[in-house]
């Protein structure tokens, strides 16, 4: 059965790039445009992995990670941050919020597939 990945990014162009890359690897893809949207949609797809941007309106990636870790159903779900940011301060903030890992954009499809395999055991 196909594993499901939820991508959370406010850019439709970035969501399309991720959708194509992940579908090519055989994953089912669910999408949300920011943290609020993700929290509303996530139960419908019950993803095995969440890939989230940081800079988003309404609720950013940090807020989303904290909210998901506060829900028992997603306390152990891997969450990868995929962002243009690379400061140590922001990485530490994501780690403290409960993120599993950090990838700096632009992503490379092969590296992304490898990263997903590492966290989707």
């Amino acid at each position, binding site marked *: 059965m196909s594993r499901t990945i939820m991508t959370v990014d*406010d*850019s*439709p*162009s*970035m969501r*399309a*790039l991720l959708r*194509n890359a992940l579908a090519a690897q055989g994953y089912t893809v669910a999408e949300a445009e920011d943290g609020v949207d993700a929290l509303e949609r996530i139960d419908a797809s019950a993803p095995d992995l969440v890939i989230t941007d940081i*800079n988003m*309106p309404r609720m950013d990636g940090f807020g989303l990670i904290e909210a998901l870790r506060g829900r028992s159903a997603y306390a152990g779900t891997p969450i*990868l941050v995929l962002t*243009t940011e*690379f400061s140590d301060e922001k*990485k530490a903030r*994501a*780690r403290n919020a409960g*993120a*599993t*890992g*950090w*990838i*700096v*954009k*632009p*992503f*490379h*499809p092969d*590296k*992304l597939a*490898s*990263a997903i395999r*590492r*966290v989707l055991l």
Partner: protein
Amino acid sequence: MSGMTRTSAGTALGGLRQDGFRYVNIVQGNRGVSRDPQTMFTTVLGSCVAACLFDPDAKIGGMNHFLLAEPDEDQHVDAVAAQRYGVHAMELLINEMLQVGADRRRLRGHLYGGANLHAGMRAIGTSNAEFAIRFLRDEGIPLMAQNLGGTAARRVDFQPAHGRARCRIVQDTVADEVPRRVAPIRPAAPSGDLELF
């Protein structure tokens, strides 16, 4: 340079000029964001494209200057990779604008450049222009003005705090300053690798 102006290695070109603006040069691969009413972003474009974005309520504007890809020796262009780098270039600009108070929903865009300057090269300028138009459409950012394509270089001046741009075709002597071969945009930081926490 004003503290209200942020650039990724943009070059300030002296102090205030007679027209009342402080010019900041945005070279290929870089971008600038400002709400300073006396800042003028300026650039010379060949096959590259400059996107000028503006939030009219916050009076914040930004300009980038990017090249998606050039063909390799076999005249092959990796279209998917080019798309990734283009989206990345635009996201960097938009994120910097959002961080200083712009709202994505209010953004308006101008696009300039995308000329096919040199015979014998594939129509890289056309590819860059088509990407930029498609990106703004997909992101729901209205395209208010464009001057794209053709075979001549352009100089673009953009007032970020006012959202006004001026685009001129430049003479051969200036166009010669446009590099014949320039590298596509690449990220400043190592990208794509997973850092596990």
